[in-house]
């Protein structure tokens, strides 16, 4: 009896000990809760990697003046612009080389987002020729796409870069129809196009601060009109290409709005026997050298606006822009 009891107790003890020894459950995943503030889409190092790769791609393309080499990292308007520039460079025998695009980031404006497409802005260092810093617009269209150069713009002289959040934190991506801004980002491009077309006559002219780009557009248009006034007329249209590509909030509560406007400058030749001789660049784009009835030149404009907060009384400021002749049609 006693022995049986002892044996039973012993067995029980062994089982208990074995059970406790094996009782430790395997670890279970305990992930952090999803962050209340979304993380930046790319880390600084990732951005650097992307820019480095972009620089290599651009260098390869620039060296060969072959736009096909740009495919991995250049897309959208930038690809068209760069392709045209390559054609221009080729047509001019290198007299007008493609725009220098530094890829060293001075400021990275990284979006806080988990959706696609993702747009990241990079303010580069000044090029070696002390031209204005470029604003590079990098876009990841889909999760399986790489970040590609969507467009670039030159910073205007005297325009300070908006204060933006640290790239480690990321900048918020704002709703294009944000009421907290002086002007809805979705309306900025159209309004600016109207201002471009009408100049000071536009109702919205007061909403935009003066900028070199608008002045240059007007001057170019005026010059062109003067040049062709004997043989025809000039008409220019400014059309926003879709809505804004992205709206990124700054540290000051302002917004950076990036978009493109297509400028079509059309020269209609009304004088009989009159004809326009195309520049080699234009000729390269069209394949013809002369225009007898009409010449349409299409510019792709990449515009970067700074939209102030609502009620601040400040005007929408165009801080960077780049216009590249990307298409010509001659008849």
């Amino acid at each position, binding site marked *: 009896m006693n022995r049986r009891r002892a044996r039973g107790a012993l067995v029980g003890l062994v089982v208990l*000990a074995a059970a406790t*020894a094996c009782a430790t459950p395997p*670890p279970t995943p*305990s992930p952090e809760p999803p962050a209340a503030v979304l993380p930046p889409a790319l880390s600084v190092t*990732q951005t650097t990697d992307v820019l480095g790769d972009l620089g290599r791609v651009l260098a390869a393309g620039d060296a060969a003046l072959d736009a096909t080499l740009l495919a991995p990292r250049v897309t959208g308007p930038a690809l068209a612009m760069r392709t045209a520039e390559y054609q221009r460079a080729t047509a001019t025998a290198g007299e007008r080389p493609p725009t220098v695009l530094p890829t060293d980031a001075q400021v990275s404006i990284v979006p806080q987002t*988990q*959706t696609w497409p993702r747009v990241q802005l990079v303010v580069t260092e000044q090029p070696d020729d002390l031209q204005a810093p470029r604003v590079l617009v990098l876009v990841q269209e*889909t*999760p399986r796409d790489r970040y590609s150069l969507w467009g670039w713009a030159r910073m205007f002289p005297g325009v300070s870069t908006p204060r933006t959040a640290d790239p480690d934190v990321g900048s918020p991506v704002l709703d294009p129809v944000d009421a907290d801004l002086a002007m809805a980002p979705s309306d900025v491009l159209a309004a600016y196009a109207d201002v471009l077309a009408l100049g000071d006559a536009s109702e919205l002219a007061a909403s935009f601060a003066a900028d070199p780009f608008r002045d240059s557009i007007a001057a170019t248009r005026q010059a062109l009109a003067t040049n062709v006034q004997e043989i025809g007329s000039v008409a220019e249209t400014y059309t926003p290409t879709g809505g804004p590509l992205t709206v990124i909030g700054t540290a000051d509560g302002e917004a950076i709005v990036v978009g493109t406007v297509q400028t079509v400058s059309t020269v209609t030749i009304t004088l009989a026997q009159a004809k326009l001789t195309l520049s080699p660049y234009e000729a390269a784009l069209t394949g013809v050298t002369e225009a007898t009835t009409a010449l349409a030149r299409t510019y792709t404009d990449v515009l970067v606006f700074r939209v102030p907060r609502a009620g601040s009384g400040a005007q929408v400021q165009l801080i960077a822009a780049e216009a590249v002749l990307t298409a010509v049609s001659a008849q």
Partner: protein
Amino acid sequence: MLERLIHAAVGVVGLALIGLAIASATVWRADDVLRAAGTADQAIVVTDPGVLEMGGDPVTVTARVPSGARVVLAIGRDTDVAGWVGTDDHQRVTGLAGWHELALAAPGAVPTTSAPTPSVTPAPAPDEGSTATVPDPAGSDMWLTHVQGTGEATLTWQAEPGRWSLLAVGVTAAGAPAAPTLELAWPRAVTTPYLVPGTVAGGVLLLAALALLGRDLRRRQGVEWTPVLTEQIPVVGEPPAQPLTRRQVREMQAAAPAARRGGRRADEPPLTTSELRTLEEAAPATGAVPLAERSTTSVPAATTSDAKTAAAPVASAETSESPEPPTPAAWPASAESPAFGEQPEAGATPAAGSPAPAAPAREPLAAPQPAPTGRRALRTRPAWAPSRDEADEQEAATTSSATAEEEPAAPRGRRSAPSVTQASPRPAPGETATQTPPAEPAPPAWAAAASSDAVPPAAASTAQPSWLRRITGTTPAPPSPPASQPEPEPASAGEPEPGADERPAQTDSSRADAWRRAWGLPPLEMTNDDDGSSR
């Protein structure tokens, strides 16, 4: 038996506990590296956020695919990975199914982590999802780190704040899906929480069991030993106790008063008398008591012990010895003299009847042995050691000197005493082999000799002469007193004087008697005293 079983069981439990504790730290010790593997059914495998970090800090991910295929490992934000995977068929690693097995969610299960992805993912999904080809995650800008290899790829990931997922994609050379086998390995800070407490507790149990068992064994041995002792003891104690006690009691009781009257006062300090009374009062109950009483008379403390221990003379001798040291003179006299007195009396009483012990004893002695040494002849046994005799002689000569001499005698008694106490009978045999038997059984024999004065006297005389000769030869001085003995004897015949004489004699002789008893010898002095008195 049952107790011992329980103790043994406790020990076994302790051992088992120690074993388990050690095993928990060795055999059952968790691996230093926790490895968990799982083979997917799909080409795309994604780990849920937290899986990478669940086992330890740096996780080493190894993905294997059938030879020839290519495998890509990438780690990115869970939303990025989820966005990249989109709606393509894939499997999720949700955790551990066991210590070494990854839990893979059902193929094609869409993670619920990213709500926003649907808005975008639909686009890529139709592009590549339907096709048999597998997209290549390599080259995406979203991965914090990624590795690719043919057949196998290994990637180590240090934990970072945030939610991270692993993406593993296996692609054959032809672009067809190749299900990867994923293995995650974490270094483990292995703890052995059961080792120390288990070992300590087990050790305590084991020690306790050992102690208990040891006690059992000791107890068992003790039990075996005790009966041996008890066997011996009764043999030693009983014979003297029984025969001696009753007679002695009577005799001693009878003798005691006489002793008080006569000698006590003279030789012994006042203490003894008072003590004697008290002792006597207590004593009567047991036969041995009288002896004890007398012995105790010298020292009060001994009385109780003596009284209690009804043991024969031996006991009394022992007890008397220990207390006596303070008063050497008193001790031998009081303690032993009675003892001797008893035995001889016992012998004498039957013959003489039981009046005053002294009277009967003396007569025979006086008769056989004339002048030379009335008392001494009687006192000293033929076999007795010369020392004893000398002591007696001296004592007899002068009580004062006797007391002085007693001291040397006392030590003997003390020395012998310890041996006596342990085994009273044995030590005796050494010296007086012939007499020792008498000591126990002898009392009767001896008593008979003593009692039947008529016959024994001859024997006694025969024995005595030799002894006497010795004595006389050895101690010239004493002889003179012996010469005077005849005178004392008549005096002794008159009880009062002899009593007085006896007392001193007893004191001296009592020492010797105690010593003898210690050695298991029959008391001589009693005979002397008795003889002296009786004869």
